[in-house]
C-alpha cells in the first residue's frame, strides 16, 4: 500500500485547516442523513439527464457518473499558485503550436528532436505555414493535475483537443448547493457559474478579423450518441449559441453557413467537439459522416475560427508532454510553476532499459492513448500483464512513456459503508482568447471509487466531486441572512 497524502487528515491525525468544517460536517451528520443526501443527489442528476455514454457498452447507452457528496476543498492561496502555473503552461503551449506550424524555431534550436514533432501522427502537415486567427490554437484546455503532498501540484496530462467535463464542474456545484446548503453556507466558496460567460467572451475574442457585425458562434457536436452529448447541449444552452451537427452546416465559396428556418446563415466561430480527423471528409477521413465537406478550406481561407484549432493534438501527445518544462523555458524564459511527473521516454534506449528493469513499479502509457485505456499500472498488474507490456515495449518502444507510480492524494468519500479516503485528481479549465487567459476557480475533481484504485476515468468506474476553492481564513461562522417575512394578501372569503 502506497503511503499517500490525504487532503483532509494528516498522518498524525490532525485535520488540515481548510477541511475543518467538512470534517465536522462528516462527524456531526448522522449516516442516514448522508445516505439520503446521496440518494437526493443521484435523483437530481437523473432528472436533469446528465448521462454519460460508454463506448462498447450497448446495454448502458446512458449512464450516470457517480457523484460523491463530500466536496474537495482547496485553499485560496494553494489555488493562486495553481492558477499562475496553469496560465503559464497554456501560454507556452500556444506559443509552441504557433511555432511548430510556423517558423519551427524550437526545432532549429535543438531543444527537442525534430522527428518527435514532424513524424508525430498528431502533427497536421496541412497546418504548416498557415496563420490562424489571433495565433491562438488552444482556446479551451483541460489540464489534469494531481498532488502528492502539501507542497506541489503536478501536471499529469494536458488535454488540448476537445477536453470535456466542464458541465460536471457546473452541475456538481448546483447539486452540492442543494444537498448540502448548510456546509456550503459555512464556507466562502469561489463561484464557478461564470464559466460559460468566460467561454463566450473567449470565443467572441477570436472571431476572424474579416468578420463584420455580430459574430455568430456555434457549438459543433458529433450528435446525441456521443458520450459527451449532454455536455455539448448543456454548454450551447448556457452560451446561448446553436448546437449544430455536421449536417446543419454547409460551405459555399469557402464560407460556412448553418441551415436555418430562414435560409442559410453565416457562421464565424465554431466551438467544435469533434476530433480533427472527422471535421471535413474532403480534407481528413473521407468516410466521416460527422463533419462538413469543405470546412477545412473555409478554415484556412480565414473565414471561420475553429476552437480549438486543427492540429493541437501534437501538444498534448504524451511524448511531447515530457518536454513541456523545456517549452516553458524556451518561450517564456521562466521556470515552470507546476511540476511535470518524471517521465521516461521509451524511445530513448537508456530510458527503455530502465523501464524494462523496473516495470512492476512503473505506470506505462501509450503515447496516443486516452481515457485510461492501454495503460499498465505496474504495482497493480498481474505478472502476465507485465510480460505482455514488456513485449509491446520491446517491439514498439516509441509508442510508450513510463512514469513512477504516483501516490495520488486522497479525499474523504461517502459510501453506504461510511466515509473512506479515495484517490482524486483535478481538471481545471483554462480559456485562451485574444484578450487574455481566464481560469475559473475550481474544476472537475475525479475520484477513483474503487478502494486503492488510481484510475479516475469515468469510463472505468471513476466518479466526480464538487471542487471548492475557499478563502483560507473562512473559519468563523457566517451569519445567516434573515428572510423577509412579508405577509401575502389573502383572498377575501366574503364579498
Amino acid at each position, binding site marked *: 500500500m502506497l503511503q499517500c497524502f490525504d487532503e483532509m487528515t494528516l498522518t498524525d491525525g490532525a485535520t488540515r485547516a481548510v477541511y475543518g468544517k467538512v470534517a465536522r460536517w462528516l462527524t456531526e451528520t448522522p449516516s442516514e442523513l448522508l445516505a439520503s443526501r446521496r440518494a437526493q443527489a443521484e435523483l437530481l442528476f437523473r*432528472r436533469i*439527464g446528465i448521462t454519460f455514454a460508454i463506448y462498447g457498452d450497448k446495454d448502458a447507452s446512458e449512464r450516470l457518473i457517480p457523484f460523491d457528496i463530500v466536496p474537495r476543498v482547496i485553499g485560496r492561496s494553494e489555488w493562486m499558485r495553481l492558477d499562475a502555473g496553469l496560465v503559464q503552461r497554456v501560454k507556452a503551449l500556444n506559443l509552441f503550436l504557433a511555432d511548430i506550424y510556423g517558423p519551427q524555431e524550437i526545432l532549429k534550436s535543438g531543444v527537442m528532436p525534430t522527428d518527435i514533432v514532424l513524424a508525430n501522427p498528431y502533427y497536421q502537415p496541412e497546418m504548416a505555414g498557415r496563420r490562424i486567427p489571433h495565433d491562438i490554437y488552444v482556446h479551451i484546455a483541460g489540464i489534469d493535475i494531481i498532488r502528492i503532498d502539501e507542497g506541489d501540484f503536478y501536471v499529469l496530462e494536458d488535454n488540448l483537443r476537445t477536453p470535456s467535463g466542464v458541465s460536471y464542474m457546473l452541475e456538481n456545484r448546483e447539486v452540492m448547493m442543494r444537498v448540502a446548503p448548510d456546509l456550503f453556507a459555512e464556507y466562502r466558496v469561489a463561484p464557478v457559474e461564470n464559466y460559460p460567460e468566460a467561454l463566450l467572451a473567449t470565443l467572441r475574442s477570436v472571431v476572424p478579423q474579416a468578420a463584420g457585425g455580430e459574430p455568430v458562434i456555434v457549438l459543433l457536436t458529433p450528435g*446525441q450518441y456521443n458520450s459527451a452529448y449532454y455536455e455539448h447541449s448543456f454548454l450551447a444552452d448556457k452560451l446561448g449559441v*446553436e448546437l449544430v451537427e455536421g449536417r*446543419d452546416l454547409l460551405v459555399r465559396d469557402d464560407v460556412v453557413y448553418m441551415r436555418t*428556418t430562414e435560409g442559410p446563415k453565416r457562421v464565424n466561430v465554431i466551438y467544435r467537439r469533434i476530433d480533427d480527423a472527422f471535421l471535413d471528409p474532403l480534407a481528413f477521413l473521407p468516410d466521416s459522416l460527422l463533419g462538413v465537406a469543405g470546412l477545412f478550406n473555409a478554415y484556412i481561407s480565414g473565414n471561420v475560427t475553429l476552437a480549438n484549432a486543427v492540429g493541437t493534438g501534437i501538444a498534448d501527445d504524451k511524448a511531447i508532454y515530457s518536454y513541456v518544462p523545456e517549452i516553458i523555458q524556451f518561450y517564456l524564459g521562466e521556470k515552470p510553476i507546476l511540476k511535470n511527473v518524471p517521465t521516461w521516454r521509451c524511445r530513448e534506449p537508456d530510458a527503455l532499459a530502465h523501464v524494462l528493469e523496473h516495470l512492476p513499479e512503473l505506470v506505462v502509457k501509450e503515447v496516443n492513448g486516452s481515457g485510461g485505456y492501454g495503460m499498465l499500472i505496474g504495482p497493480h498488474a498481474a505478472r502476465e500483464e507485465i510480460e505482455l507490456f514488456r513485449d509491446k515495449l520491446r517491439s514498439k518502444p516509441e509508442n510508450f512513456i513510463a512514469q513512477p507510480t504516483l501516490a495520488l492524494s486522497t479525499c474523504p468519500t461517502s459510501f453506504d459503508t461510511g466515509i473512506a479516503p479515495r484517490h482524486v485528481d483535478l481538471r481545471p479549465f483554462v480559456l485562451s482568447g485574444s484578450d487574455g487567459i481566464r481560469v475559473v476557480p475550481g474544476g472537475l475533481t475525479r475520484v477513483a471509487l474503487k478502494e486503492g484504485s488510481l484510475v479516475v476515468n469515468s469510463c472505468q468506474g471513476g466518479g466526480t466531486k464538487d471542487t471548492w476553492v475557499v478563502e483560507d481564513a473562512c473559519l468563523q461562522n457566517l451569519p445567516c441572512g434573515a428572510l423577509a417575512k412579508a405577509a401575502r394578501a389573502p383572498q377575501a372569503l366574503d364579498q
Partner: protein
Amino acid sequence: MLSRTADNLYWLARYMERADFLARTIDATRRLAAVPTSKSGPGTEWESALEASGAAEGFRETRAVAEEASVVEYLMFSTDNPSSICNCIEKARTNGRAVRTALTVEMWDAINGAWIELKRFVMGNARGYDREQSARFLEFVKKASLDYDGAAHRSMLRNDAYWFSRLGLYIERADNTARILDVKYNILLPETEAVGGSVDYFQWAAILRAVSALTAYHWVYRESLKPWLIADLLILRPEMPRSLIACYENIVRFLDSIGKAYGHKGAAQRHAHHVLARLMASTTKEIFQSGLHEFITAFVEDNTRLGTMICEQYLFA
C-alpha cells in the same frame, strides 16, 4: 433557428400529442367493449380502435386476433408498432434530446421524467397483461402529455421555437380528431337516430371521451347526445379545443406569426388559410348532405398536405 431544431420541436410535440390520443382511445374503447349489448359482436371495438390509431395494417401483419389484450399491448408497448405509446414517448425524447438547447428545463424535465417512468411500466408489462396496471399506465400517459404541454405553454419564449412546436401539436391534434370521426362516421349519420337505444349512446360517448369532450358537450349543448351535435362539436365549434376548426385557428395563427417574424409568407400559410376558410363556411347540415366521410377524408388529406408544405418551406431548407 436551425431547421433541424424546428423539425425536432415539431415532431416532439406531435409524438406527445399522439401518445395522449392513443391513451384516450384505448380508455374509451375499453369502456365501450364492456357494454353488454354490443350489437357489433365481440372484438370489433378493438378493431376500430386500431383503425382510429392508424395501426390496423401493422397489427394484422404481426398479430392474429384483435381482442383487448393483443390490441392494448400493440398500441401501448409494442416495439414493432411505430406509433405505439412507448415508441411515441421514446421518439419524443430522442427529438427532445437532439434539441436540448431549444427546450426549457421544465419541458425537458417533463419529457425526461416521463421517459424514466415509462421504463418502469415497460418492465412491469413484461410480466404480462394486467388491466389495472394498464389503466395506471394510461393515466400516466395522459398526465405526461399534459405536463409536457403545460411546461411548453408556461415556460417557452414566444418565438419561432414555440410556434413550430405548437404547429406540430395542432396538426397532430386535427389529424387525431379527424381520424376518430372517420372511423366512427357510420354511427354519426342522422339515420341512426331512429335506431336509438343505449348502444349508440355509449358509442357516441366513446367518441367524445377519446377527445376528452364528453363534459364539454354537455356544457355547450345542454342536451342529450345527438350525433349531428357531436359532429358539430368536433368539427365546427371554435370553443372546443380539439375541434378541427379550433386546431386550424391555431395553425393559422402560428403560421402567420412565423411568416411575420421572417418577413415572408408562403404556400403553407396560403393553404392553412384556405382550409380554415372552408371550415368557417361550413355548416353541419351541408357536411351531412354532401357526406361526412367525404368531408373528413378531404380534411385529412389537406391536413397531411399542410404538414408536407411546412417541411418544405422551413424544415429542410
